């Protein structure tokens, strides 16, 4: 059932009678996935409007439509009462809507002041450097940014880039500023600075949309909170009327009863994987893993939960030998594998189903059969010594297509032409061709249809019961709770909680994921 919420804003500050932006019936599909399904949303001047939702709820899609980067399939956008149609971000900027993306859209070789002039058609044909600088300095000062507009963007820190990006939008006199997960890359001090900036902006009558995963920040800052789930608005209310527990429940959907998850009896197998105080470096000096220690036993499925970017991909890469930890050690079956190559990990029986299927799991210009052989080159079945038998590769592809139910099962078909679900069957089948010692499954069920999901779930269970240690990285609570025997929660590269499915709820996991500070 579709609901629509247009409550009048309850603002203690300046109240304007008309919303500055009205979104009605916004719908957008990516293939079979409805990212936005008839979304209605109003933005009022002088408010901070938080958009909450799990990954894939459609927040970024909706805001990208409002900012002109995506076209919509259906719906209307009214800005200050006028119907508009944005064909590009430039159109949206002209109408006063700007967005600061998670990945900076600035030109890194140019200075901050120059970036503020890029794309501005109102600039005179000949631009004076001094005027640009003066304007940039004035704006930076008004917002309290200690930012030198003469510096090149390439030299700026993440937080400074964000400030530069905000300045660039404000230079175009935006009335709506969208910030897509702006705090994800900031330190607490930088976050406090950003919040002060946001308050300054709304005092001047702009409205700010704030996309976030972080419940405590949202409650702290927002005037109004809208929760999206599976492409729909499921809740929209003034922040003062929102309780944290209710918001999490809205984000996660109806919380399942505890008894629904009865994990199989913990296997008493040997310890297969042992991580000790592992650290991994990320970009910009931010650690992507900090002091991670964990154990996985044979026959055990360990779930790893966390919001996007909490360190899951770094963990998967470290476990697969694709990234060497900067500190700490990895033991597989008691052998120290720290710093060894991905090839050595594979030969040790560690197999990996990567989250980025097309980008990492397959070579798309090669055939189904060749991709089936991709990670089995050393296998004697494929040819003696250095030789590769085309017939053996072909048979491997045909066998895999048959056993995994891949349709059409033509081993010569280019992987580029296969659907995402089919590619996943191919990868899962390939990585589990022989029962691995350890399997890392990163978002293995993401975007699969019901049948394929059941297939992969059954495969994971079967592997566990035959003694494989499995690390299951997922964002789906139902999957984590129904498949794993234990769940660890990552938050900013650290393990912040360990839960047993029979002793926890999706709500509890949801709160864990949002960081140690947010408690209902």
């Amino acid at each position, binding site marked *: 059932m579709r609901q629509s919420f247009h409550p009048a804003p309850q603002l203690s500050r300046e109240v304007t009678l008309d919303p500055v932006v009205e979104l009605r019936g916004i719908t957008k599909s990516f293939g079979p996935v409805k990212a936005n399904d008839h979304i209605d949303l109003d933005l009022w001047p002088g408010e901070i409007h938080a958009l909450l939702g799990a990954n894939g709820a459609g927040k970024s899609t909706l805001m990208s439509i409002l900012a002109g980067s995506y076209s919509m399939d259906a719906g*209307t956008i009214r800005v200050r009462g006028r119907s508009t149609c944005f064909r590009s971000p430039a159109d949206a900027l002209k109408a006063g809507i700007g967005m600061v993306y998670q990945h900076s859209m600035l030109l890194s070789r140019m200075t901050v002041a120059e970036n503020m002039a890029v794309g501005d058609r109102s600039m005179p044909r000949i631009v004076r450097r001094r005027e640009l600088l003066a304007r940039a300095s004035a704006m930076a000062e008004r917002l309290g940014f200690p930012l030198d507009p003469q510096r090149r963007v390439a030299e700026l820190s993440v937080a400074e880039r964000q400030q530069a990006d905000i300045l660039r939008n404000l230079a175009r006199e935006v009335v709506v500023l969208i910030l897509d997960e702006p705090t994800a890359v900031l330190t607490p001090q930088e976050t406090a600075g950003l919040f002060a900036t946001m308050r300054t902006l709304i005092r001047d009558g702009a409205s700010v949309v704030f996309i976030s995963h972080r419940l405590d920040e949202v409650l702290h800052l927002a005037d109004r909170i809208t929760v999206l789930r599976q492409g729909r608005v499921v809740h929209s209310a003034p922040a003062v009327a929102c309780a944290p527990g209710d918001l999490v429940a809205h984000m996660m959907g109806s919380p399942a009863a505890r008894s629904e998850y009865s994990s199989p009896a913990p296997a008493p197998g040997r310890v297969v994987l042992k991580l000790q105080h592992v650290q991994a470096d990320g970009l910009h000096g931010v650690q992507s893993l900090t002091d991670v220690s964990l154990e996985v036993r044979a026959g055990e499925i360990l779930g790893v939960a966390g919001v996007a970017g909490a360190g899951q991909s770094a963990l998967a890469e470290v476990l697969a030998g694709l990234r060497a930890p900067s500190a700490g050690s990895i033991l597989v079956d008691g052998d120290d594998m720290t710093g060894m190559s*991905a*090839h050595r990990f594979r030969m040790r029986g560690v197999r990996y189903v990567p989250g980025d299927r097309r980008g*990492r799991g397959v*070579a*798309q210009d090669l055939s189904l059969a060749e991709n089936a052989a991709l*990670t089995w080159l050393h296998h004697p079945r494929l040819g003696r010594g250095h030789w590769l038998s085309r017939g053996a590769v072909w048979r491997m592809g045909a066998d895999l297509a048959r056993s995994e139910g891949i349709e059409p099962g033509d081993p010569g078909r280019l992987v580029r032409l296969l659907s995402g679900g089919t590619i996943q069957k191919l990868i899962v089948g390939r990585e589990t061709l022989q029962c691995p010692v350890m399997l890392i499954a990163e978002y293995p069920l993401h975007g699969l249809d019901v049948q394929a999901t059941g297939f992969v779930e059954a495969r994971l269970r079967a592997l566990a019961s035959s003694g494989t240690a499995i690390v299951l990285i997922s964002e789906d609570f139902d999957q984590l709770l129904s498949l794993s025997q234990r769940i660890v929660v990552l938050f900013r590269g650290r393990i912040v909680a360990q839960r047993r499915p029979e002793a926890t709820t999706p709500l509890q996991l949801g709160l864990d994921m949002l960081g140690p500070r947010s408690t209902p």
Partner: protein
Amino acid sequence: MRRLIFHRRHGRSALHDSLTIAGSIGVALLAGYLFLEASGIDAAGAYRALLVDPLGTSYGFFETLVKAIPLILTGLAVAVAFRMRLWNIGAEGQLYAGALAATYVALFTPDFGLPRAPLMLVAACAAGAVWAAVPGVLRATLGVSEILVTLMGNYVAILVADHLCYGPWKGKTTFGFPMSDRFPDDAALPAFAGTRLHVGLFVGVLCSLALWALLWRTKWGFQVRVAGSNVRAAEYAGYRVKRDAVVVMILSGTLAGMAGGVELSGVLHRLQPRFSPGYGYTAILVAWLARLHPLAVPLVAFLFGVLLTGGEQLQVMGISSSLVDVLQGLILLSVLAADAAANWRMAWVVHQGSALSEGVVHD
């Protein structure tokens, strides 16, 4: 209202590709014909010289094959590097490096009691390999663009050859011309009686077969093809991508260096400055038109051999050789255009006035 729309075409057959290339060459020749007529030149006569003489006369045919040999080897060199997305545009420099090493062996080494020609080829391969290994190692270890380093390598090798021809290696029996002395007889590759065609042709065709087998029949070749398609998948699968990249560059340089050795040992029998009419650059076109497939390289090289031989015939007729360049350019452009167009399926759709997509509101 009728509107032309384009659909992306998936999956192309070898037949489709062959027809595309043949058709586009036809279009290019037609355009060239009109161009020649417009320039006031007897186009029919020019085409006879350009196409019939190289293919229809025995002298022309052998000459075409002679010209195709260095193109086969350099074309293979470029193709194998491009397969792994290593943009080696330095086949020309590697060819000169090979030629220099071959010259050194031919003129300045003592007689080992062995025929010199095979030793020259080995030395040429080694020199080309070294010339390409430098950009390969720089790319793999420091991430330096191989495009720039291979390109610079061309200038260095060509100028070193110039220097040697004008200076230290200038021959005593060349009447003051800047070139080396003629190589001793045992430095020549065997030629077919009465022609300039030499066994280098077999070397080229064998290399083409060997490279095909290496890429499609060995595990190492498989790894190279995976890395060329998706380097992240290759890393994920545990392949040693950086090492393979260096090996591919060395292999590429070996083939290009061999082209230099074969050309000197088989045809010129001495080192001359600027002896290559840009074989290493034409090789990029050869490799690209062959779709980086080793077995297609000799065929495409033969076609370019026709153009080169025909160009000489045109010059004999008194027509500027730049016309040949124009024709080559036309053929390449139309093949590339046809190649891009073949990815798309065109269709006319009829638009009803009311068929504007729903929900888009215009001001």
